[in-house]
């Protein structure tokens, strides 16, 4: 497999604050690579440096064999970038935005109609093409931004939290589009704060505090979770969580909507659960052992990291 993106000891320091503090990894051609981590982990800095928008303080970034410091223009020709914020011309129509970016990337006229049609097809924006970009819904805006980033069929697509603040249905649709772009041979690097999205990637890098603490396929990351994990429910979840926190041998408690994830040093017996149900005033119910999700692992790994510091 050829390498599409190679990050070697990348460091970016603002003043004295290291936003990214020595990161190395590579993304293979045709891979759908996820970058996850809390806000402030350094994801956006890394992405912007890859897009030749930021100059590394030290280290280097190789995009398709070209150095981001010297081959800026060549990189920009093969790269599609979708920034975190919607940043197209709100006062131009959908079609005018697409045409403008097609112009900038010198998409030849013979291919243009065909390409626009394909982009309209997957984004389903054709019926809105006369509408101003500023008047689109959040999900449609994201699809338009993606279409503009794809107008020149880039070999490498880099997206910074593309589904941030978008409804779940549009998100799902968006990821289906990403998958189909990947199948056509593009390399995709995407950052996200949604763990269920991370699970759709081929490999995931976990970033925290300017460092990468884990890189692996999602299944492998999930398999690393060392403790038995249970899912349970109750009426007063907050109270239930506090109850578990005070027990002995508890590793981690985490609320997930209307469920609580609890992990233990030792696998508890059914008798333990009966006992806890009584102790919690009969509130505890529906306990079942559960496969750890990305989020469980993510929180576990970050907690480990905090302990190590």
């Amino acid at each position: 497999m050829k390498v599409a993106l190679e990050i070697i000891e990348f460091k970016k320091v603002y003043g004295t604050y290291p936003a990214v503090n020595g990161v190395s990894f590579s993304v293979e051609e045709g891979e759908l690579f996820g970058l996850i981590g809390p806000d402030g982990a350094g994801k956006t800095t890394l992405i912007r440096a890859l897009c030749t928008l930021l100059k590394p303080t030290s280290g280097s970034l190789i995009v398709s064999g070209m150095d981001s410091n010297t081959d800026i223009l060549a990189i920009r020709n093969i790269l599609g970038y979708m920034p975190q914020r919607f940043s197209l011309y709100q006062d131009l129509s959908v079609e005018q935005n697409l045409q403008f970016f097609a112009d900038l990337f010198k998409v030849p006229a013979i291919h243009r109609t065909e390409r626009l049609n394909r982009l309209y097809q997957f984004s389903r924006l054709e019926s809105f093409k006369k509408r101003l970009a500023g008047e689109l819904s959040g999900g449609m805006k994201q699809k338009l931004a993606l279409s503009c980033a794809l107008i020149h069929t880039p070999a490498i697509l880099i997206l910074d939290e593309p589904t941030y603040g978008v409804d779940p249905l549009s998100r799902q649709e968006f990821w289906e589009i990403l998958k189909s772009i990947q199948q056509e041979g593009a390399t995709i690097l995407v950052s996200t704060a949604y763990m269920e999205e991370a699970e759709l990637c081929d490999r995931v890098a976990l970033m925290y505090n300017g460092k990468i603490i884990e890189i692996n396929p999602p299944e492998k990351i999930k398999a690393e979770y060392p403790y038995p994990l249970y899912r349970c429910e109750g009426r007063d979840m907050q109270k239930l969580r506090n109850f578990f926190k005070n027990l002995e041998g508890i590793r981690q408690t985490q609320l997930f909507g209307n469920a609580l994830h609890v992990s233990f040093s030792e696998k508890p017996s059914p008798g333990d659960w009966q006992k806890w149900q009584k102790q919690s005033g009969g509130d505890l119910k529906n306990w079942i052992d559960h496969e750890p999700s990305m989020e469980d692992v993510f929180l576990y790994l970050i907690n480990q990291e905090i302990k190590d510091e």
Partner: protein
Amino acid sequence: MKRILQMMQKEFRQIFRDRPMMGIIFIVPLVQLLILAFAITTDVKHIKMSVVDFDKSAISREIINAFSQTERFDIKDFTQDLHRIDNDMRSWKTQIALVIPAGFSKDMQRGAKPQIHISADGVDGNTAGIALGYAQAILVKYGLENNSPDVSLTRRISLHIVNMVERMWYNLELDSQQFMVPGIVVVLLTIIPMMLSAMSLVKEKEIGTLEQLMVTPLRKHQLLLGKIIPFLILSYLELAIVMTVAILLFNIAMNGSYLLLASLSFLYLITTIGLGIFISTFTHTQQQAMFVAWFFMVFMIIMSGFFIPIDNMPGSLQAFTYLNPMRFFMAIIRDIFQKGSGLSYLSRDSAMMTFYGIIIITLAVFKFRKRVS
């Protein structure tokens, strides 16, 4: 080249879609021209005057009559009390006082030097100076017509005048609009291009589209030219509209060459658009850009000689005006309009203006980076 045209197309689409912006570009300048042209005037008329006639002779009455016949002076009060004049001047009831002493007519007939006393309220120094000038002119004229070869006048600051016949060149009637309207043209060619270019670039920065443009293969010069050329075109359109109004509505005399005016305007527009780009490189929001542009504008207008003559400024401040490109363009435009001067007479100002234009545009282009950090 094609990309520049595509940038321009996008730019024009955005400008024409932005209705408030269209208003700012085309309506506001006209309103400014109409209002400023009437408001900023150095013509002095209807000066409030008090008269103290101790002489009470036919000659004194004739002199007073000469003052009352012109619309420059409105005689508000006749009195015999000099203290009253002091009080009236303090309470803004009178601006200038004419005192004819007893024995004035006798002195005149005897051939001795007759004296007349004039006091003017110096709080508004400009008006006072102009009013004194008018008064002198009236008295000189009266003295000449009455074959009295030597009419001396005494003011609080004593001043002797020789018989002087004035004739204004270029602006025969000293019509201040002939002077101010070309100045307003310069002001507009300063504000609009600077604001347009600063706002447009900072807006792209604010919305994030500049970042999006940066990751495309669009080159820096293509991006900048794609911005500058539409603003140049708009500024020329603006110039054409404002000049049409100036010439047709205000009867401003345009004695010079239109071609010269257009080509020197180009040099100046490069300067003001360059300033706008420069401002956009170190501001992050449209608000910031607006304030910085405002600062530049006020400095440039005040130090340009637009309504405060540079010759009236203290020496150190005069030297300071040489830092102001608008100063040179102000002189150039007024010379072209009023005197019809050719390039050979304007070469020094044009050279200075070009010098600043090159510095500013170079600085702007250099500071404008296609990278974020």
